[in-house]
């Protein structure tokens, strides 16, 4: 896999994403998701909320990296918190 020029952070990044997808699949098989309406303006399933969470995490990280001198860990913290809120009440 040398040609893909892996680094430790990207390996961790993709492993976490893969683990999330696998986990979501297992969860879906165990108890299928029902579309519901939370604080978001649209009715969503669990998968939708995960997608929204990941996409907003990407934007949060970009904002923090690009326009603030803050640490990336802060961005990660905010993203995880936001994703959890989304998954529970979104």
């Amino acid at each position, binding site marked *: 896999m040398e*040609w*893909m*020029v*892996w*680094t430790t*952070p*990207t390996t961790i*990044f*993709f492993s976490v994403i893969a683990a999330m997808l696998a986990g979501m699949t297992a969860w879906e098989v165990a108890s299928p998701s029902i579309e519901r309406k939370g604080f978001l303006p*649209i009715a969503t399933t669990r998968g939708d909320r995960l*997608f929204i969470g990941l*996409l907003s995490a*990407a*934007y949060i990280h*970009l904002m923090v*990296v*690009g*326009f603030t001198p803050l640490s*990336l860990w802060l961005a990660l913290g905010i993203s995880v918190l936001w994703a959890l809120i989304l998954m529970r009440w979104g």
Partner: protein
Amino acid sequence: MHKVQNNRAWWLILPMLLLVAFSAIIPLMTVVNYSVQDVFDANTRYFTGTEWFREMLNDPDLHAAVLRQFAFSLTVLAIEVPLGIGIALLMPKKGWQASAVLILVTMPLLIPWNVVGSIWQIFTRGDIGLMGWSLRELGYEYNITASPVDAWLTIVLMDVWHWTPLIALLCYSGLRSIPDAYYQAARIDRASRWAVFRFIQLPKLTNVLVIGILLRFMHSFMIYAEPFVLTGGGPGSSTTFLSQSLTTMAIGQQDLGPSAAFSLIYFLIILLVSWVFYTAIMNMQKDNKKQGEA
């Protein structure tokens, strides 16, 4: 009645999944890997972390390119969608005229993008091009290599010429699928032409329009060959769109790290806009259905 659940058909998408993995997912992962490193060659590379992202997000040239890109995509959509619907409504419905018009309308879609660029490049030349020459004869100093306004208008015109047929074709097929009974009911109610359009044709066109608008948005947002051939991004950088900035960086200067970071940002923008758009329209439809049932 007992319904048997059988999910084995899912295995049938396996070949597609493999294909997508090799054509899209693995390359995308490689891009992510490049974006955090400074790659010189196969053996020499340094981990740079988020440096490229910071640099790209604060690059004024790229900011300008992003704004230009949005301006272009929105302009093109605002013209092509209404125009496409209009053309579809005017197209004859049966007989040899229908086939003839269909072929004529489809023609621009069959031309490869760089050829479209070349056609328009010649078409707009002041000395031998029909459009360029005529405009000059009429007294307008038309020059796409010197005037940004001319270059912009020409690119928009070119895109409208090339891609309105797609919207028109999609809408035409959408219109054909409306059962006659709807029109008969409208006639009984003495509905006006506008009412027929607003309450029968337009709602029935939503699905094809969603596809058409999404395709046109994504495609115009990634436009490359046509402006590249027509204006080369000029005059100055007035028609340099995102993909061209990216190509200059990645191929021209071999800056793999920064261009990887930039591609990811580009990808995220397309992903967000397409998703918001898709969700909004799908939701509109759901609401419409609920109202219909109530």
